[in-house]
């Protein structure tokens, strides 16, 4: 089954032709120039590009801070790569499964979505296993007395029965393993969201906003193990996902006039600059007193768990500006230099998992090789190279498998017979 590769990203072309909606509904990132939509038969490369970049940034942000970290967007504003990833995931999922729902009906589309959820879940459990292996090694090999207290975090290894079950229930999530559980929950609720979105898009978005507000008002969140709550609150982060879906199913087209307004772009730039300055004060505390106390008190803390409004707006401003500045027919999208990022974006689940694994491995290497800035640099760079190479292999395989056509299908049937298959 070719769906091992990222299906959602696969389908823009045909959908653009088949979609009942009048013109091919243009993805959000290509709005300003009405003529700028990709010709039928082409993918929306900007989505792939930015999802690929987001995956790289997530990987770099998961490594210990180093030179590369300074290139990640979280150092220049409130939002970070997670927002981009979740938004684009919502967008592509709605696009592809929305089409499936139109063509094949609610039940079949839901089944396909649930199959995807299962894949993500298995990927998460796989990563957890790798994490356990690494942590167990650290626990037995590393006992610097300076960190006696912090090593207490490994106490969970003393009760593997509880820990592993809690991990399977998605309640125990080690550091850096928070995104996939969020993704699983969001995808799990995609069928009803899509069903409603295809009938009453604005109502769906409204409900999503209402849920977001309720989550803030009543502190809704899912419990985590051993205590606390989910680091990415699904009740809050669903807003980005549903907003992505809303854009995919026609919202983007309706926003087009708004997005080409110069006034709005001016506001976006102003907000991004203000956010940049505030972020600067975190790194250069000397600048801190230029921020009025009253604004500081109103602004902090900028809550990532509940997707702070300031973060959300920051993401919107960033997205609007990107769409404005980067038409979808921008020739750079075809440049070989951006090819690796685009390929990564086209195989997001696999590349995301590889990224998390590489981040674990990177931590490990840096710990063992007690590295300076040079090693840090090498680790970050080789991680990105490995992710890109893997994406290239996936693309190659997908192409070959598609060419195989019937052969592949029958091979798959054989695999199914043998109890394997997808």
């Amino acid at each position, binding site marked *: 089954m070719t769906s091992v590769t990222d299906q959602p990203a696969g389908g823009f072309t045909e959908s653009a032709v088949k979609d009942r909606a009048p013109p091919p509904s243009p993805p959000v990132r290509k709005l300003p120039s009405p003529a700028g939509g990709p010709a039928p038969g082409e993918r929306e490369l900007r989505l792939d590009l930015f999802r690929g970049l987001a995956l790289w940034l997530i990987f770099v942000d998961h490594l*210990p*801070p180093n030179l590369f970290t300074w290139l990640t967007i979280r150092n220049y504003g409130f939002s970070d790569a997670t927002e981009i990833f979740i938004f684009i995931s919502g967008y592509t999922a709605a696009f592809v499964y929305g089409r499936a729902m139109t063509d094949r009906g609610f039940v079949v589309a839901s089944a396909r979505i649930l199959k995807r959820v299962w894949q993500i879940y298995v990927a998460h459990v796989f990563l957890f296993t790798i994490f356990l292996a*690494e*942590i167990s090694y*650290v626990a*037995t*090999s*590393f*006992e*610097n*007395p*300076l*960190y*006696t*207290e*912090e090593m*207490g*975090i*490994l106490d969970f290894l003393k009760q593997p029965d509880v820990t592993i079950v809690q991990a399977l229930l998605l309640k125990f999530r*080690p*550091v*850096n393993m928070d995104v996939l559980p969020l993704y699983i929950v969001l995808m799990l609720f995609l069928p009803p969201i899509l069903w409603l979105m295809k009938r009453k898009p604005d109502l769906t978005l409204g409900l999503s906003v209402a849920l977001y507000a309720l989550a803030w008002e009543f*502190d809704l*969140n899912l419990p*985590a193990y*051993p*205590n*606390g*709550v989910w*680091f990415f609150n699904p009740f809050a982060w669903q807003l980005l996902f549903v907003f992505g879906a809303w854009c995919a199913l026609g919202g983007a087209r309706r926003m087009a006039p708004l997005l080409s307004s110069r006034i709005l772009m001016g506001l976006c730039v102003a907000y991004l600059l203000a956010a940049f300055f505030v972020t600067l004060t975190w790194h250069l*505390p*000397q600048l*801190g*007193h230029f921020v009025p*106390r009253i604004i*500081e*008190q109103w602004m*902090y*803390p*900028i*809550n*990532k*768990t509940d997707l702070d409004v300031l973060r959300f707006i920051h993401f919107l401003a960033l997205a609007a500006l990107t769409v404005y500045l980067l038409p979808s027919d921008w020739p750079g999208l075809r440049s070989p230099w951006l090819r690796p990022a685009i390929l990564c974006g086209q195989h997001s689940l696999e590349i995301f998992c590889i990224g998390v694994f590489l981040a*674990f491995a990177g*931590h490990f290497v*840096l*710990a063992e090789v*007690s*590295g*300076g800035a040079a090693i840090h640099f090498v680790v970050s760079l080789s991680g990105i190279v490995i992710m890109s190479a893997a994406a290239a292999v996936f693309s190659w395989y997908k192409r070959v498998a598609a060419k195989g056509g019937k052969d592949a299908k029958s091979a798959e049937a054989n695999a199914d017979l043998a109890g394997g298959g997808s």
Partner: protein
Amino acid sequence: MKAIAGLIALALLWSTVPASAENAPPPNCEVPAHFLASEATLKKVAETVKTEGRLDIMVIGSRSATVLAPDGTGFPGRMEAALRDKLPTVKVNVNLQLQIKKTAADVSGDLARILEGKQPTLVIWQTGTVDAMRAVDPDDFRTAVDEGVTALQKRGADVALMNLQYGPRMETMITTAPYLDVMRVVAQQHEVPLFDRFAIMHHWNETGQFDLFNNSRGIELAKRVHDCLGRALATFVIEAARIKPAELRTQQ
């Protein structure tokens, strides 16, 4: 299993061999000035030092306020020594209240007992580690620190906060950012100085002053880090109280 046990035994044996680090020259404990400068002031400390010539400091800390070694090697003891050194005319006394495995909320609810019968001029509250390890909701953590600082201030003590340790290996296991943010915010709101232990240790690791990736089981590294933390903390207190050691000397 046997092999692992054997290896561990071997490692233990190895760790009893005196580490060569012991012969290393004492570090210069370099800390950029802006880590130790603070907008907030310790008024009570300034006043008591000036008028009474004494300084009673209570450190409320978790396990990372100590080193597994004889007393006085943890940063509270090192700070006491450094303060006595820098302020020879002042009677400095540092008292450590260890609150092992207690969250900020636990400590905050227990302050009356911790402070019973004591009137410290300054309370340095080191917190956040346990909360981060247990992934306590950052909002709850914020409430707890906020209430704790308010209670301490009500008792008439100056308050300073100290955040988590930086540990490069910890990054894989503990999410520290929200707790660091909360402490920065609460410090700002209450206008109390924050000793940014995390940033300082991170700086030391970056500049190579300390190799915090080091995985020797020896205690030397911990002792040296705590020594530097203690000295930095002493400077931090003096700066935040706007004390000029030279002036004090001429007064006496």
